[in-house]
């Protein structure tokens, strides 16, 4: 591999390769060719195709009877003007209400606070504000717990916490859908046993207030992988650092913030990047739990869900492709920003050395 990389930088010297080097290079390329072919056929070329689609007007169901038109930047313009994507969540006061009295419509003074449904991108961002901290810190907390020397039966707990991750996520979502069913679910039955009045029972995925906690609960079910990565990071922290800190009289908080956190910050950063990418691709849960309708009040109409609907349900290939490319750009920008901030809070031992 090292040799292949060096070929890239010493292109001129390729001609000077010995027969043995050439033979090895051929072998290397032969072995990697299935991946190259697969990547070209199933990733690179479709990406190029979708990029071309963004400049066309393609609707797949109209098929051969609809000649494809060149749209220029029309799809991008339509997307940036699409309020269902970009509308900022806002509250407004409606002062009057229309009523019908004796068959006559009347306006009466009846102030009400109403929320305009947010655009799909904002839904994603707002959910991220709730979900990202949970997705980062809960696995970290669990990993710290499992790494504690005071905990007995560590292997058992590690297995138990990791086990849900093995369950297919769709199955887990259905399972949780049953548990959190407002009418017959175990969660509400349990709350009723605790004395919570029926009228105060959470409506879970049917309620604007509860829907994100519902999704987060479902998400926590599958944090075993993130927890395991955090645990691996924790176990790689050299013990002599802890010993030295203790000798210096450092307390648990100081040890955590001065040693543990910096040492595992690359792992946290890695999980953060994965979580952000996962957030922008969030799709399965709202599709299964709320049937992809955006209910309640548009709070679950995530960007990727809209993308799916445009592309597959409405089969508007060009618009869907445009949404996909904009999503790619957004994720790229956010990732670059995160890498920019990483210099300030992520500790790489090799760099500091």
């Amino acid at each position: 591999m090292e040799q292949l990389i060096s070929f890239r930088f010493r292109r001129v010297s390729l001609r000077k390769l010995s027969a043995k080097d050439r033979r090895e290079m051929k072998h290397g390329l032969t072995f990697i060719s299935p991946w190259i072919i697969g990547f070209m056929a199933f990733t690179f070329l479709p990406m190029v195709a979708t990029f071309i689609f963004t400049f066309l007007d393609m609707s797949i169901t109209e098929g051969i009877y609809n000649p494809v038109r060149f749209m220029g930047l029309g799809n991008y313009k339509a997307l940036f003007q699409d309020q269902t994507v970009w509308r900022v969540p806002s509250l407004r006061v409606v002062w009057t209400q229309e009523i019908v009295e004796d068959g006559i419509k009347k306006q009466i003074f009846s102030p009400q606070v109403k929320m305009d449904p947010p655009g799909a991108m904002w839904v994603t961002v707002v959910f991220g504000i709730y979900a990202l901290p949970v997705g980062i810190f809960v696995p970290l907390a669990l990993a710290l717990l499992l790494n504690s020397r005071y905990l007995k039966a560590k292997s058992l707990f590690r297995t138990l916490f990791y086990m849900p991750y093995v369950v297919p996520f769709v199955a887990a979502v259905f399972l949780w859908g049953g548990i959190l069913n407002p009418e017959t679910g175990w969660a509400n039955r349990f709350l009723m046993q605790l004395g919570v009045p029926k009228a105060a029972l959470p409506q879970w995925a049917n309620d604007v207030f509860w829907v994100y906690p519902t999704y987060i609960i479902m998400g926590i079910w599958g944090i075993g992988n993130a927890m395991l990565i955090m645990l691996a990071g924790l176990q790689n922290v050299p013990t002599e650092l802890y010993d030295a800190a203790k000798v210096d009289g450092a307390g648990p908080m100081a040890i955590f913030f001065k040693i543990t956190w910096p040492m595992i910050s690359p792992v946290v950063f890695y999980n953060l990047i994965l979580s952000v990418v996962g957030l922008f691709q969030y799709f399965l849960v709202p599709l299964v739990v709320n049937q992809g309708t955006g209910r309640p009040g548009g709070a679950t109409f995530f960007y990727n869900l809209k993308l799916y609907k445009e592309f597959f349900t409405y089969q508007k290939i060009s618009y869907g492709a445009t949404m996909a490319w904009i999503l790619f750009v957004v994720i790229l920008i956010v990732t670059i920003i995160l890498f920019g901030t990483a210099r300030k809070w992520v500790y790489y031992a090799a760099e500091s050395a």
Partner: protein
Amino acid sequence: MKKTLLVLAALLLATALLLPACAPKPKKVQIRWFVGLGTGTDANQVPVEQEVVADFNASQDKIELVLEVVPYESARDTLSTQIASGNGPDIVGPVGWEGTNAYRGQWLDLAPLIEETGYDINQFDPDLVAMQVTTDGQLGLPFAVFPAAVYYVPKMFDEAGLNYPPAKYGEKYVMPDGTEKPWDWNTLTEIAKLLTLDANGKNATEAGFDREAIVQVGYYPQWQDALHMAAFWGGVSADDYYDEDYNAIIPDAAKEAWTWYFNGMWGPQPFIPNASLAGSPEFSGGNVFNSGRAAMAITHFWYTCCLADFRDAGNEFQLAVLPANPKDGQVHGRVDADTFRIWKGTQHPKEAFEVLTYLVGPAVKKLAPVYGALPARPEYQQTFLEAKSAEYPFVTSWQPLLDGLAYPDVPSAEGWLPNMTQARDRIASFLDLISNDGTVDLEAQIEQLRQDLDVIFKK
């Protein structure tokens, strides 16, 4: 020498035997039959379809019929991709109106082929032939029809001390006190409330009824969407939702139907399960009548496909006629119709038509029972009903379903809408919302739906 001659003779014999096999055969025209937009993909259905294909291929030497079965979940994507790439199948089906209209403009008008080949369409009921005519022409021939009726559980009526709903159109419903009432939506509502029970055995009209602990519901619109409900209520067809300029309209009958449905779930005396209850495991995750917890359901003949759990649990159902609209006193039914379509882009329309006439002809005998479809050809109906009676021996009469054929929705409630997939998706979201949230302002939501449809229709 003798040995050499023997070898040569053997070689000559072998060559003589092989030569005819190598001779060019007359090339068969390949016709692709795509299954997946509707029924036809279940494990018990595919072998029968393969048998039909084998029968057809054995019957003649000009056409080779090839079966393509695609799972329902991915069938639209697959078909769309095939059509977009100009590689669409020759025949698609069985497919209902929704699937047909999702690909409006893609189907071949059969009228010229019927005329050219002299195919006798008089062998079908003219009304059923007319059902297959759209603005794009004669898009199909009658294959299977699915009239609707009220499915009910006699045991629940007995326990509530109620008489059964009428089995003949025009008959009245007899209340427990002996008074007669017209069999309409009001009467259905009245008895559905009495059939809705909570965990303490109280019905929805009794004081102390616990709506949070419903264990049995009086009614459920089984596998009906908002358009179907409006059609059953007031004969609203898809055409009624827009005018010639594609302005969206919500017909009054649709508003009434949806209001009735909403109040049935969220009103003071609920008798329809809301989405959370209907979707719970106790209510079979949406297949509510099959759970044995619904006293009545309006649905089609195809629903007999999916009642095995219900039957195997020792439950029994009977059939009653559809209720009338209380305003106009008319019954507004619906008849689903599945058939086969020829793709407009086929390279072999004549051969495809020959296959199509086979599928709606001799193949009906094998396909209809396995599809749970009442054959459009009267000569095959009796055999089909006998098969159904063997499957559900407790059903005393299928006549209420057969009589439902007299109440078709022409034009169909599943007819074409401008920007159809998006429009139907928006309507589905509306139904999902009002089924899940009893606090919404229904009138405002209906107006919001109209406004959104207006934008969608004009896109």
